């Protein structure tokens, strides 16, 4: 297992010491109520000015960088859709070499790769796996809005079962998305990297502390952030935080972290709400019938039980 200096004396971010500076300027072109850009801004707030960002093609790249404008106050590069982990590994390797050869005078920067669920779980999975396996010291952030939003709400392997998208439409012969959401954090964790976590901007302190830990730990870290997308989910823009919170309160999107292989559920839900409360907030699920919801509820319960088993697992 890789070492993780720093976490012993970890100083938590609280509402009192929240970083104030923003590194993504207002005026970007994200939709109203976009929780993806909200999450992205939170990540950067914690990362601070000594940070380099590699961004995959997708909503966040498009809405922040229409030349000659840019929303970025950090050095930022977009190369393509499926390779942002590879680009980040090049940046990390380049600066590491320059530093060793005395050609880089400053402190080593944070290197953060950002990709959507499509960029991460589908087309960029190989590049991500390679970068995690090689052990680059970087943070990979997957902003999971559960479909290809930038290109018009097509399904991804991270789209939840039963959701209607433009390429998994609900119809008389189809429930919509017919597969269960891919376990991306599990795949990342299988690389035996020192830090993996799920996060959600509805729980901003939990999210920010996870970013801080991920950047403190040496070696690759993976953060999977639930990112409500009113445009793609057909939810109310003003309800994005409410929807985000419901995802956790119903255990649809549990919050946990895996440090050196050890899983901890970071937000325990004592009295989970029924998943139907969550599904009601988004029209992508509007077609689901009672039986479908029952089935989904059962699967969500099983998913949580599995996490709990992993949490209590002694080794």
């Amino acid at each position, binding site marked *: 297992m890789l070492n993780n200096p720093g976490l012993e004396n970890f100083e938590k971010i609280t509402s009192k010491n929240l970083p104030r500076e923003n590194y993504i300027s207002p005026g970007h072109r994200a939709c109203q109520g976009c929780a993806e850009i909200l999450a992205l801004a939170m990540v950067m707030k914690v990362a601070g000015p000594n940070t380099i960002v590699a961004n995959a093609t997708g909503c966040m790249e498009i809405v922040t960088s229409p030349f*000659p404008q840019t929303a970025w*106050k950090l*050095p930022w590069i977009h190369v*393509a859709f499926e390779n942002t982990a590879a680009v980040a590994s090049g940046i990390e390797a380049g600066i590491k070499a*320059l530093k060793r050869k005395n050609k880089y005078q400053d402190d080593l920067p944070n290197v953060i790769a950002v990709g959507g669920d499509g960029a991460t779980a589908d087309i960029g999975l190989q590049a991500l796996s390679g970068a995690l396996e090689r052990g680059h010291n970087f943070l990979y952030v997957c902003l999971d809005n559960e479909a290809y939003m930038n290109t018009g709400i097509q399904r991804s392997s991270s789209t939840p079962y039963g959701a209607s998208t433009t390429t998994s439409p609900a119809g008389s012969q189809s429930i919509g998305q017919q597969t269960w959401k891919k376990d991306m954090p599990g795949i990342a964790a299988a690389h035996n990297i020192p830090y993996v976590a799920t996060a959600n901007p509805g729980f901003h302190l939990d999210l920010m502390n996870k970013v801080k830990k991920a950047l403190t730990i040496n070696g690759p870290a993976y953060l999977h952030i639930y990112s409500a997308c009113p445009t793609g989910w057909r939810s109310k823009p003003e309800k994005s935080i409410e929807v985000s919170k419901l995802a956790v309160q119903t255990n649809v999107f549990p919050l946990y972290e895996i440090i050196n292989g050890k899983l901890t559920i970071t937000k325990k839900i004592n009295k989970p709400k029924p998943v139907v409360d969550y599904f009601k907030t988004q029209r992508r699920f509007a077609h689901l019938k009672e039986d479908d919801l029952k089935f989904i509820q059962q699967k969500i319960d099983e998913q949580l039980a599995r996490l709990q088993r992993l949490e209590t697992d002694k080794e």
Partner: protein
Amino acid sequence: MTKAKGLEVSLAVAEAVKQANVDVIAAYPITPQTHIVEELSVYVANGELDAEYVPVESEHTAMSASVGSSAAGARTYTATSAQGLALMHEILFIASGLRLPIVMTVANRALSAPISIWNDHGDIMAERDIGWVQIFAENGQEAYDLSIAAFKIAEDHRVLLPVCVNIDGFILTHMIEPVLFIDQKKIDAFLPPFNPALTLDPKKPVTMGPVGVPEVYAESRKQCEQALINSREIVAEVFDQWGKTFDRNYKLIEKNGPDEAKSLFITMGSMGETTMTAVQELTDSGESVGQVRIRLWRPFPKKEFLNAIAGAEELIIIDRALSPGSHNGPVAQEVKALLYDEPVKPRVHNVIAGLGGRDVTVKDFKKMYAMSRKNELDPNYTIWGVRSDA
């Protein structure tokens, strides 16, 4: 300068890359490129070269990581062949679009299917329009020399474009050739440290690779193309400087044989050496024939090429790649398009030879010449040596 040492050309290229003191190598193995990157990994492993060797999981990542490290300000090298180059395709345009001076060796190899590890130029011809400076080496010495010169060309602030040095797979990469190596001190004097124009610097944040809306896209592409066109002069300048410093002279377009030759073979890459033997023998037997070698393929040196062929009555253009469904192979297309505006045009024959490692011998070139004299070559192109019973 020390005396010539016989060694495999791949190892000479690796030596050149080491002497260029690269910071990052991101590469994925593919025959016939492998010996270059294996050797580089040995240099890194035993401390002879202080660089990050990134053992990527694919060529797509090799090029993507190269883009990242070059954007971070590191001198960056990679190498590939055929399928690997094709896998990089998407990112090759981005490397030039972002003006990143990456240097890449392409050990030229035929593209599948059927799978073939042997040489032709089909791989790089499919990447003709990537916006990179593209150079072809003819022999081991050239492969070594041009691999070093490539960094100087790429990193010149008047260029800032990626450069690809093509060396024929096996025919060059795996051949033992005598190579004169240059002292490290002299190389350091010739090739100053990489001084990037812009980097991903937290103290001076820039946005690289933004969205190009219709109002700016065309201008952006035009700027890149202009940089490529302008690079011709810098390539020539660096070659000149190389000649003055190291006493080996390279031209963008090289003419060999008698000045007033009526027929000219046009070649690229290692085939030029065999052609020259044929040219020599034909000249000795009283034929009026010469050779023109294209060393710089992109940007295409129009002026130099037209000068070189001035007065010739006939061109036999050897293509080592097929352009399926077109009138000619890629090199002949290029030359014919160029001749359209010329008041006097030589006859053009196009022979596509050496596909997938098919041997092309001195005898073959002599036969091509004889057939061209009798106008027996196909008016569009002839695929040399293809068996009709196949």
